């Protein structure tokens, strides 16, 4: 039957990054399939009891696995579907080609097409992330250690750029909170700073003075510890393409895209908030919080609507932008009582 994909390799969660191209099936689903096969062997009743009981059997193959189909461009990054509330939006995915060729990553140039053209010079391995500042146990972690901090999850998030466009991206990663907990923040820690790589040898854009390098971002500690705040290591079931912030980046789905710092080398716990790069460049235009808010305009762009990339073609109308990018139910309470016009 067409919906059962046979495989010659047995998957194990610890089997590492590199897998045969078609193997991204999490163990739970894999075992479901085995049960399904057993069910088939014992007849229709068995089928109904196993496969259908899980609501998986007659979906498309990619849906059946509960995971998106890999494009087969980079090394696989196995994951299981996230169970964090709000982490799996039902919007239509933005095609991989658009996700990986339409990027703001000024370290590789200011045009949207520059990162895809120039980021091949970035070396995502070896990589070291430092976690320090107001922590009990400062960390210095290589990529292999980072991938083991918590199980990899697939999450489908909306991404809303401050420029008025948006995408829907299947990320692979873990909650940032797992990483921060490991460093044991002290009682003084109230804010978190994220520092991106700024190596002129790997990143031609940092030779220009367009921003004050390195790129830094910031979150309040409670924002950073929110389960939706993701440390992403991959997208579309594979490791992150360089132009999307390899090998690890932040994804904060209810904030404008620039808050989601790419290619992070340092996470610093702080007592006082830092000044993020865009706030430093234009304090009138960019606020510390930068929560997606259709009612608070950027001076140069209305934030009421957005253009969904890869959907509907040239004459497609724009979509209304949702409060907190549609994550109000999950994150609204973080800002209870705050004047969001003042703290934009």
């Amino acid at each position, binding site marked *: 039957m067409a919906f059962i994909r046979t495989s010659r390799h047995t998957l194990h969660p610890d089997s590492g990054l590199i897998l045969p191209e078609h193997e991204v099936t999490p163990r739970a689903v894999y075992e479901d399939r085995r049960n399904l096969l057993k069910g088939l062997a014992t007849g229709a009743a068995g089928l109904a009891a196993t496969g259908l009981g899980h609501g998986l059997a007659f979906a498309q193959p990619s849906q059946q696995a509960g995971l998106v189909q890999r494009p087969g461009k980079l090394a696989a990054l196995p994951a299981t579907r996230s169970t964090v509330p709000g982490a799996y939006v039902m919007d239509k995915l933005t095609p991989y080609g658009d996700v990986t060729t*339409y990027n703001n990553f000024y370290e590789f140039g200011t045009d949207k097409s520059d990162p895809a053209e120039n980021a091949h010079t970035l070396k995502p391995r070896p990589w070291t992330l430092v976690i320090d500042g107001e922590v009990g146990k400062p960390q210095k972690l290589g990529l292999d250690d980072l991938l083991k901090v918590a199980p990899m999850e697939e999450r489908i998030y909306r991404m809303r750029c401050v420029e008025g*466009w948006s995408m829907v991206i299947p990320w692979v990663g873990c909650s940032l909170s797992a990483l921060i907990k490991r460093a044991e923040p002290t009682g003084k820690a109230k804010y978190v700073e994220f520092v991106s790589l700024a190596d002129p040898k790997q990143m031609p854009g940092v030779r220009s003075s367009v921003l004050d390098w390195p790129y830094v971002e910031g979150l309040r500690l409670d924002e950073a510890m929110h389960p939706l705040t993701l440390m992403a290591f991959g997208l579309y079931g594979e490791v992150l393409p360089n132009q999307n912030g390899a090998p690890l980046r932040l994804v904060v789905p209810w904030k404008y895209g620039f808050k989601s710092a790419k290619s992070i080398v340092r996470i610093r716990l702080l007592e006082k908030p830092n000044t993020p790069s865009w706030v430093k460049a234009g304090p009138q235009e960019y606020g510390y919080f930068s929560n997606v808010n259709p009612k608070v305009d950027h001076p*140069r762009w209305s934030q009421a609507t957005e253009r969904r990339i890869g959907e509907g073609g*040239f004459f497609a109308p724009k979509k209304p932008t949702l409060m907190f990018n549609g994550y109000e139910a999950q994150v609204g309470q973080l800002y209870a009582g705050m004047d969001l016009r003042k703290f934009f």
Partner: protein
Amino acid sequence: MSTASDLANTLNSWLMKPWAKPLSWLVCSVPLLVLVAAAAADRLGANPVDHFIKETGEWSLRFLWLTLVITPLRDLAGLPGLLKHRRALGVTAFTYALVHALTYAWLDQGWVIDDIVADVLKRNFILVGFIALVVMLPLALTSFNAAIRAIGGRRWQALHKLVYAVALLGLLHFYLKKAAKNDLAEVGVYAAILAALLGWRVMRKGGVLAMLRVR
């Protein structure tokens, strides 16, 4: 020396040929035709509307700058025939600006007039662009021989000095847009070329007021 002037003479005779003017108009329309064809074939990238608006705007600036290149180039290279082609460049600059503005109103704002008015008034860069387009309008509308005869050559010349204001407004519009993301390298190139084009006129006429005076 003689070869250089021979070359200028040959070029000039080509510029004066009866087919030269239609060819100019045709060449001026190529970027727009390419953009429309690419849009129809869905080859404008991930954000086609944004790309189309950005490109038509930049082409408008380029043609405006070319319009301003004509006089210095005519004098420096000895090519009086260039003047025959200035109208095509100027009208093309206006056409691209108009397409740019209409695409914004249609595909970005969906013809919602209230939204457009609010956007134009609220956002400096759109307001400046809108003023530039409005100032261009009388220039475009008087870009045919009967109009020049009707209003008189001197008044026509005085009116068309507004092109300097349009260029400065266009540059400011581009700057304000790009400043949002600190992306000013390209704006710098346009500014430097415009400074050279206007600087040459000021130096030759002996002052800004002299440049604006109609002889």
